[in-house]
C-alpha cells in the first residue's frame, strides 16, 4: 500500500505543478460553460423572442393590412421595428444593414383578400419579403411561415365575417382582430413528472464536463512520456514495480481529479451561471444523484484509460498534446458537445453514436432530463466501461511491446 501511496503522492505533486494541465482541466471548461450557456441561452428556450427585427411597407393602408400587421406583432417571435414608406427605401435599408426582413403589403391587398383573381380578372400582386442574404435561412423560413399563418387566420376571420353577414348571423365588432387559442405549449416527457424542456445550462454543463474529463490526456501524457523518455519507468521496473501498478498509480489520482471537475462544473452551473443571467442548473435528487455519479465515474474511467493509450502511442509531449487535443476536439464535435446532437442532420447523429463523449453525454441527459434509472443509463455505462477496458488493455500491451 505504501508503494501506491507514493505513486499517488507523486502524481498529485506533478499535476499541481503542471499549470497548463490544470488550466486545461479546470479553467477551460468553466469558461466554455459560461460562454456557451450564455451564447445558446435562447436556442434552448421554446418560444423565446428571436433577436431579429422586421419592417413593413404597407402600400394598401386598408383595415385588413393593418389587421395583418397587428397579428404579426402579436406573434412576438420577431420584433416589428419600423414602417417604411416605399419598397425602394426598404431595399436601401436592408443594404445599409438596418433591417434583416421587410414585408411589403401590395396595394389592393385587403380588397383582394378573398378574391385572389380579383373582381377585374387581373392577378393579385403577391406579398413580397425582402431579406438580408446573410440572415439564417431557418429564420427566413420561420418569418415566412409566421406571415402565412397570420394571413391564413386573417382570411378565415374575413370569410367567417362575410358568411355570417350572408346568413344573418351575429358578428362581433372587432372581428378582424379576433384571437384564437392557437398557442402551442412545449411539454417535455419524462419518467416521473413533467417539467419544461432542458435549458441551455442543463445541456452545456454535462457536455463540457465530459469534454473536460477527457482532457486529463494532457497531464497524464506529460508525466508518462517524461517517465519513459528519462528512463524512470525502467528504473521503477528494476525496483520490482510492475507496470500495472504504475497505471493504477495514475488511475486513482486522475479519477479524483475528474470528480473534482464534476463538482466544480456543477457548482458553476448552479451558482455562477445565474449571476450572469442564465438559469441555475437543476441536479437530480436522491437515487438520481447516485445514477448521475455512476455516469461521471464511467466517463472518468474511459477518459483516463484513453489518456493512457494516447500517452503510450505518443513519443513526445508535443505529439501527445496534438493527438490528445485534436482527438478530444473531434470526439467533442462529433459527439454533440459543441453542437447539440439534436441540431445535427441524421447522418451526423448516426456518426455521433461512435463518440465516447456522446455516450457520456447521453447518460447525463438520461439522468438529468428524463430522470432515467439504473437500467436506463446502462446503454451509456456499458460502452463507456468497455471502451475503458479496451483502451487500458491496449496501453498495457503497447508498453510491454516497447519495453521488450
Amino acid at each position, binding site marked *: 500500500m505504501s508503494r501506491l501511496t507514493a*505513486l499517488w503522492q507523486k502524481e498529485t505533486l506533478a499535476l499541481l505543478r503542471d499549470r497548463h494541465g490544470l488550466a486545461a482541466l479546470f479553467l477551460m471548461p468553466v469558461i466554455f460553460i459560461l460562454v456557451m450557456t450564455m451564447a445558446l441561452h435562447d436556442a434552448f428556450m421554446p418560444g423565446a423572442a428571436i433577436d431579429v427585427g422586421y419592417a413593413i411597407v404597407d402600400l394598401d393602408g386598408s383595415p385588413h393590412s393593418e389587421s395583418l400587421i397587428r397579428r404579426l406583432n402579436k406573434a412576438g417571435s420577431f420584433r416589428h421595428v419600423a414602417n417604411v414608406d416605399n419598397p425602394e427605401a426598404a431595399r436601401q435599408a436592408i443594404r445599409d444593414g438596418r433591417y434583416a426582413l421587410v414585408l411589403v403589403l401590395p396595394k389592393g391587398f385587403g380588397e383582394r383578400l378573398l378574391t385572389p383573381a380579383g373582381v377585374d380578372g387581373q392577378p393579385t400582386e403577391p406579398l413580397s419579403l425582402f431579406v438580408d442574404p446573410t440572415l439564417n435561412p431557418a429564420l427566413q423560413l420561420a418569418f415566412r411561415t409566421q406571415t402565412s399563418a397570420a394571413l391564413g387566420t386573417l382570411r378565415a376571420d374575413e370569410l367567417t365575417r362575410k358568411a355570417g353577414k350572408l346568413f344573418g348571423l351575429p358578428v362581433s365588432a372587432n372581428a378582424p382582430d379576433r384571437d384564437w387559442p392557437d398557442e402551442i405549449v412545449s411539454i417535455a416527457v419524462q419518467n416521473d413528472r413533467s417539467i419544461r424542456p432542458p435549458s441551455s445550462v442543463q445541456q452545456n454543463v454535462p457536455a463540457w464536463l465530459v469534454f473536460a474529463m477527457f482532457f486529463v490526456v494532457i497531464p497524464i501524457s506529460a508525466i508518462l512520456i517524461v517517465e519513459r523518455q528519462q528512463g524512470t519507468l525502467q528504473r521503477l521496473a528494476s525496483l*520490482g514495480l510492475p507496470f500495472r501498478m504504475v497505471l493504477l498509480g495514475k488511475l486513482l489520482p486522475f479519477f479524483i481529479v475528474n470528480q473534482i471537475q464534476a463538482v466544480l462544473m456543477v457548482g458553476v452551473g448552479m451558482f455562477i451561471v445565474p449571476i450572469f443571467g442564465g438559469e441555475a442548473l437543476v441536479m437530480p435528487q436522491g437515487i438520481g444523484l447516485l445514477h448521475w455519479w455512476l455516469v461521471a465515474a464511467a466517463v472518468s474511467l474511459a477518459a483516463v484509460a484513453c489518456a493512457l493509450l494516447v500517452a503510450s502511442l505518443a513519443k513526445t509531449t508535443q505529439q501527445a498534446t496534438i493527438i490528445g487535443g485534436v482527438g478530444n476536439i473531434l470526439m467533442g464535435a462529433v459527439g454533440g458537445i459543441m453542437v447539440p446532437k439534436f441540431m445535427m442532420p441524421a447522418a451526423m447523429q448516426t456518426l455521433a453514436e461512435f463518440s465516447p463523449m456522446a455516450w457520456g453525454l447521453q447518460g447525463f441527459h438520461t439522468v438529468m432530463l428524463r430522470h432515467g434509472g439504473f437500467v436506463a443509463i446502462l446503454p451509456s455505462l456499458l460502452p463507456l466501461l468497455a471502451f475503458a477496458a479496451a483502451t487500458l488493455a491496449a496501453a498495457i500491451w503497447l508498453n510491454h511491446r516497447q519495453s521488450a
Partner: protein
Amino acid sequence: MLHIDGVSFRYRGAATAALDGVALDIPTGSVYGLLGPNGAGKTTLISILAGLQSATSGQITLNGIPLAEARSADPRAIALVPQDYAFYPMLTVAENLHFFGGVLGLQKTELRSQIEAAIAFARLEQVVGKSAEQLSGGLRRRLNLAIGLLGRPKLLLLDEPTVGVDPQSRHFLLDSVAGLPANGTTVIYTSHYMEEVEAICQRVAIVDHGKVLAEGPLDALLRCDESVVELELNAELPPNLITRHETIVEGAMKYRLKLASAAALPRLLDDLAGAGCAVQQLKVGRENLEHLFMRLTKRSLRD
C-alpha cells in the same frame, strides 16, 4: 559473488546476438568495470542484471541463488542507476527521494534515515528543496546516484554515471563510488572513460559484439612484456632513438617504445640524459587500458 555463466540474449528481429555466451565472476565488495564501445552489449547485460530483460540462455546467480529468486527474496538487493536522469524534474530533490523510497517499500523512520543518509552521501544538503529541473548536470548525477542508494542495495549497477558532468563533480562521484564497497555494496561500473575505470575498478571485463574479450584483475590485464616502455619527456625524443627502437608517438612528448629486450632500458635512459631529455614519467611492462582495449577490439572505445 555474482556468477554469470554463458548468458546470451538476442533482441526481437535482430540479426546478431546482443550477448553471446557471456561468463563473468564478480566478487563481492569490489568495483567491477565493464568496458566496451557503443553496441558492445554492456547495457543489455546491465538490463538483464536489473531484471528488465530475461536472458535467452545461461544462468546468473547471486551468492549461489538464481538472480530472479534473489530479487524476489529481497527486491532491494539490486539497484540500477541508469545513464539518463531517471527521476522527476518537476519534483524537488527531497520529494524524489521520498517517492523512490516509498516505491521501495521503506516506511517512516527507515525511510527518513535512508533519505538523510543518501542526501549526506551525495552532498545534496544545499539543494534538498530545489526542484530537480533546476539542478546542474553534476547535481543531477548526484541525485541519480543517491536514489540508487536508497534501500542499501547489495549490488549497484552504474551505467555511465559521469556523462556530462564537470571535472569537480566527476572527481566527487568517483571518490563516492570507490567508497561504496566499504559499506558492503558491490558495484558494476560501465564507462567510456578509461581513466575512471583505471582509477576505481579492481577488476575489469572488456566486451565487444556481445562477447567477453578479456576479464580479470586490472593489474593482471595491463601487465605486458617488460620490453615495452612508456615515456613522457620534457622535450622531443631524439630522431636517432626513434629509429633505433620501434616507437609510437602517443601525444605531445609521449612515446611508447618497444625495446629489443628489458636489458636495453638502462642504455635508453643514459641516451635520453645525454640528449638533455628529462623523463617526466616512465612505465615499464604495463600498457594502459586504452591500448589493451584497442589491441583486443581493433577499435577505439569511443567508436
